[in-house]
């Protein structure tokens, strides 16, 4: 029976500095955002950092609870921000670790350390098109296998790729200018 700590054993600031020492030269910057520890690292930190975070005696992040990405299309060369969220149940800690990637590059998979990464990385691959090197079964998970494009990228239209341009046009009144509109109303009233 595992009884978690009722309050966090480390403050967010201490978590950031602990991850900094674990990441070593890969550490970019860390901050405390809305009470959460957030650390940015370079892509070469992975996959070593997964194992380090899991086995570290002070942090002991047993769970990788979530992987997601954010697309910043204007940030040339670092368009994709990958976000891993870790949680320690025994020590009641939480941290977010992020990495910036260029389009078309990949990052090492976490599946060797955390089994939860299997589905989560497939989801990120499916919706963002980010490659996870070393994933045993990297293929689409929510969309059909033959689907084209990655919908959560910002350039992907929310209506879908094959949406006709004039679909929003109102066929009843078309491109009428306001004068024509009112004369049409008048004619309708006379009839």
């Amino acid at each position: 029976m595992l009884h978690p700590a009722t309050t966090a054993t480390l403050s967010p600031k201490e978590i950031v500095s602990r991850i900094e020492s674990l990441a070593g030269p890969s550490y970019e910057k860390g901050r405390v955002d809305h009470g959460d520890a957030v650390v940015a690292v370079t892509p070469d930190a992975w996959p070593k950092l997964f194992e380090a975070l899991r086995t570290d005696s002070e942090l002991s992040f047993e769970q990788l609870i979530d992987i997601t990405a954010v697309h910043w299309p204007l940030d040339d060369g670092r368009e994709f921000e990958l976000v891993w969220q870790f949680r320690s149940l025994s020590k009641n800690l939480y941290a977010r670790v992020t990495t910036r990637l260029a389009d078309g590059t990949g990052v090492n998979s976490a599946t060797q350390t955390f089994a939860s990464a299997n589905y989560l990385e497939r989801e990120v691959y499916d919706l963002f098109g980010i490659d996870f090197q070393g994933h045993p079964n990297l293929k689409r998970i929510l969309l059909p296998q033959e689907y084209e494009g990655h919908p959560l990228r910002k350039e992907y239209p929310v209506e879908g790729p094959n949406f006709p341009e004039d679909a929003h046009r109102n066929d009843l009144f078309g491109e009428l200018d306001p004068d024509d509109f009112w004369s049409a109303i008048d004619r309708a009233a006379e009839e």
Partner: protein
Amino acid sequence: MTIDAGKTGLPVDVEHVGENRMLLNMGPQHPSTHGVLRLLIELDGEVVRACEADMGYLHRGVEKLIETHDYRGGITLTDRMDYTAGPSNNMGYLMAIEKLMGVTDDIPLRARYLRTAVAELSRLASHHIWIGTHALDIGAMSAFLYSLREREKILHLFEQACGARMTTSFMRVGGTGPHDIGDQWLDNVADFLDGYTLHEIDELVTENEIFMERTRDVGVVTKEQCFSFGLTGPLLRGSGVAWDLRKTQPYAAYDLVDFEVPVFSEGDVYARYLVRLNEMYQSCRIIQQCVDAIRDLPLDSASNIDRPEIVPPDISRVPVDMEAMINHFKLVMHGVQPEPGEAYFGIENPKGELGYYFVSDGSGMPYRCHVRSPSFVNLSIIEEISVGTLIADVVAIIGSVDIVLGEVDR
């Protein structure tokens, strides 16, 4: 025997099925998969040798849609994910926005108690669906009927509070929004708790010999698997980890009410059943305390935060008060506008940790909203623990993991 698996390229090797092996497509229209989940199972006699889950049949692109709505508009999308516990989903979404805006501590007490009560009511509703269908899958028919009768009463309470039964869109950022409740509703909740017949289901199922035979030592999840697979909720507490976000990181009014977290260490289907059943008894305790606490609050206590840039003014003031009209117009046209930044907030949903991750660019629409859905993460354990069990036990395992496909696919 060959089954055309299309271009899905599942790791269950559909081209080379061994001698005396059979491929079985379970779902997406199979009643025990609780929705449109498809399991491709390789069988040796009745024993499962490989299992692969195929999902996405219900994918609606909720995350992309939330990016195109203002923060208020996203509320209606959230209760369509875990539709068995709509208000609870709404609550997680709102509280993540409140964390992003840094107003979590300013939410009035009345709203916090009401949120807690409604979240626990939706936990009861969700667990009733689960206990009914889970027992039905295993062959106990009557629990299903008793269970849905009780759930109906809860949905009726939701209807009285906000006008909708399942897709409630309950509450708004900053408090209860327009959905404040009167004394009559509190009386109705108290009456519901008085006449609540959970003990009937308890007596029908818990000591039922057939049910115990079918669930004990079936689908055992170890503590290490819980960690590695990122499992949360009753799966975790059925495997001996006393982790419950309501206790470890209290939100809403959970730090003000008294309740226990049921934990069982066996890790099998029966342990998860006991966890959920005991959770339901605890939920009743929480709801009773919340109802009493709301009754003790002054009659005119606020149910919304006093911040005009978050909460629209009382609608009766809008036609006669210029300030109120401008305020109302701005909130309707632009919505709430959090500062640029990001925040993650997770709540203990009936199925596990439901988390919302928001990135704001300062505009009225979220730049990015990611939903960490408990069903999606918990589903991955099915592939692992089904192997080596009988095909009939797969039905019990799916039931005990308690997934809802609206949330898996989003």
